[in-house]
């Protein structure tokens, strides 16, 4: 009966393909910006201040005469870089923590998980404020602040999934086959948690983009003259009445990127999760 009540949902994943395409565009632009942008995104030209779109400056210029398109392209690279490193940091610490806590399952490991939960009370913004004196404002500060918040996220996901996998019969079978707990973690637990981690990483990347934008908007992230979307928005704020375009461009860049990653995450979840869920059926 259960097979009948749940129609196969894997027929089509429109959000997966939309999301993948949008993300690919952003990644491509970011990569291109590393070697080429229409203009130098940091070059100021006071004679060209606040120009509207033209053949030379497709999206116009800002109040220092910098080319907005070039800045937006370079901003994509910075934004992706910061959140990618931050998520890698969160995974590198969180996944092993969750995995080992679940495999050993003692009272101390539970306590370690509780401690990691405490980090949920430290939003990236407040961590960035605290770390500012330590590292100074900049990309590194943003990466670490966002990364720290991601540690408990990945620890939770891994811990929860590993805990339920650990009691499953195939893990017992592997134990009866003489495998050590470490080998079981690597051979069975991690591969089965991996789809969940991929989905979570996509979602965290999109949250990372948002956090990075907020941090650089507040002056806690990437410092000028390096262009970043958040910084551009901060610059645009006083000019909203004069040149709303300056606020629209970076804002839409953020929305496009985050939307793409979210759609990709949703699509991946639909595609990858049912296989994990079927085990309970």
């Amino acid at each position, binding site marked *: *009966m259960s*097979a*009948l*009540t749940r*129609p196969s949902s894997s027929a089509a994943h429109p959000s997966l393909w939309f999301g993948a395409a949008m993300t690919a565009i952003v990644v491509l632009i970011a990569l291109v910006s590393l070697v080429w942008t229409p203009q130098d995104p940091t070059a100021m030209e006071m004679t060209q201040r606040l120009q509207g779109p033209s053949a030379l400056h497709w999206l116009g210029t800002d109040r220092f005469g910098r080319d907005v398109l070039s800045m937006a392209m370079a901003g994509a690279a910075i934004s992706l870089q910061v959140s990618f490193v931050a998520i890698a940091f969160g995974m590198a610490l969180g996944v092993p923590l969750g995995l080992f806590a679940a495999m050993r399952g003692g*009272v101390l490991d539970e*306590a370690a998980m509780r401690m990691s939960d405490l980090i949920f009370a430290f939003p990236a913004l407040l961590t960035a404020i605290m770390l500012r004196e330590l590292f100074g404002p900049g990309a590194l500060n943003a990466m670490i602040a966002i990364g720290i918040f991601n540690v408990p996220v990945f620890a939770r996901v891994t811990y929860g999934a590993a805990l339920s996998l650990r009691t*499953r*019969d*195939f893990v*017992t*079978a*592997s*134990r*009866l*086959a*003489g*495998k050590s707990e470490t080998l079981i973690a690597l051979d*069975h637990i991690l*591969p*089965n948690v991996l789809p969940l981690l991929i989905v979570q990483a996509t979602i965290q990347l999109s949250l990372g983009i948002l956090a990075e934008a907020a941090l650089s908007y507040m002056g806690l992230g990437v410092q000028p003259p390096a262009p970043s979307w958040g910084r551009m928005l901060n610059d645009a704020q006083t000019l909203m009445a004069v040149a709303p375009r300056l606020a629209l461009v970076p804002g839409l860049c953020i929305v496009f990127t985050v939307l793409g990653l979210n759609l990709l995450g949703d699509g991946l979840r639909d595609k990858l999760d049912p*296989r994990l869920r*079927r*085990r309970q*059926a």
Partner: protein
Amino acid sequence: MTLLVLDDLVATLDGAALLRGVNLRVAQGEIVGLVGESGSGKSMTALAIMQLLPERTASTGQILFGGRDLTQTAEAAMCAIRGRDIGLIFQEPMTALNPLKTVGDQIAESFMLHEGLAYAEALDKTRAAMDRVGLADIPATRYPHELSGGQRQRIVIAMAIACRPKLIIADEPTSALDVTTQAQILDLLRSITRESGAALLLISHDLAVVASMADRIAVMKDGRIVEEGATRSFFGAMRDPYAHALYEASVHRPARQPMMNKTAPFFVAENCTRLYRKPSLFRADPQPLRAVDHVSLALSPGESVGLVGESGSGKSTLARALLGLDPLDQGTLTLDGVVLDPARKQDRLRLRRKVQLVFQDPYSSFDPRRTIGWSMTEALGHLTEPVSESDKARRVAALLEQVGLAPDFAGRFPHEMSGGQRQRAAIARALMTDPELIVLDEPVSALDVSIRARILDLLADLQAQHSVTYLFITHDLTLLRAVTDRTLVMQKGKIVEEGPTARLLDEPQHPYTQALVAASPDLPAHVAGLQSDV
């Protein structure tokens, strides 16, 4: 007088046929048993009568209930019929009740809905309804999680019969329960229907349960009723080949050689005790639960020993301890004359090489991300000397053949196989290291009856070929009689009775064994009784 008529009922969902023309009659006050394997459409039939089929289901045909066609009844009128004229009882008492509401409130809801009572009056009637289902000593203010499975099922029954419906539909009402609880719930259902004059449509996969309850039996397959008749004459007059096969499979006894001359035991567990303590950071739990309490057993080569008991009896915990999966708090394990300490890695490996396990649930016993071949050879190199890839492949192919699977199954993933095929592969995996003892933990209870019979035959064949010992954990006494030489009965962590299976079941000594035997539906005996009556 006829209460319910299903006339050529057809239902399809997204192009898949759920029901392909069901014809069935239920008379007033009659108990009709509907039997079928998974996917036969028996639950769908129940939902169709209630007009609760999944959304987007298209259906044709008639459902006449007291002369009224339910398929043509408006949803609002249907809501007035559900719960008042037809009561439905579900399989899973654990999930059928809302965990956030008291059981009393959930029963009272029916009275308020259908009889327009105020809350206080409804609670009075709720108390009476709970008394009626044998829950006189349970306060109505309890939450579902505070009750046992059997008690919850009684609550579900109280809800279904609250407004004295003319028809009760019970969909596998006892499948999730222990044998003795099952017997009590079936008794309750029988007495309630008889005393209230309601009709009962009892849906089950278990022919034995249905035969012991129903006035009439209908067998369902692929969305159709293939055989139907009064219980008295049913088993003597089956015409449909499937119905016949279902009966044969239900009473199937594999051909096996009973153990004649027992040799000295090779595996001895002495005085095993396993405690469950609540985890605490600071101090040891002063009153640990004795999950396994001073249990001793000895197994001889080639014998088949049954371990029977209800959930919570400690039989699974004992099995885990024997396999060295959990440490023993007390006691010793001796294998081939050597005392082994499962806390030591070397001893654990030694133990596992000779003692293997087949799980109950074939769906979870293989890693969904690994091929069957990969999973089967996991032990090689860990419990044995390293084995070359070509040797591995050869051994996998040989064992797959022995369990009746083609060699190409080695490359398949678990989700590409049926439950029965997976269970065969699981048996092949257990044989990989040439063990002396295989613990079979309810190896067929998750399988459909017809597949079950074939797996039992396979197990009997393999035992003859490999002269391996089986420790057969089960709750099913009919099965126990069919496949074991000797039986241990476990209750509350202790072995309360043991002896040759046939004698133990025919002349149980311990009160618990007697209760188990009395509660177990015995289809062959029942059928024999019916036929001598005729």
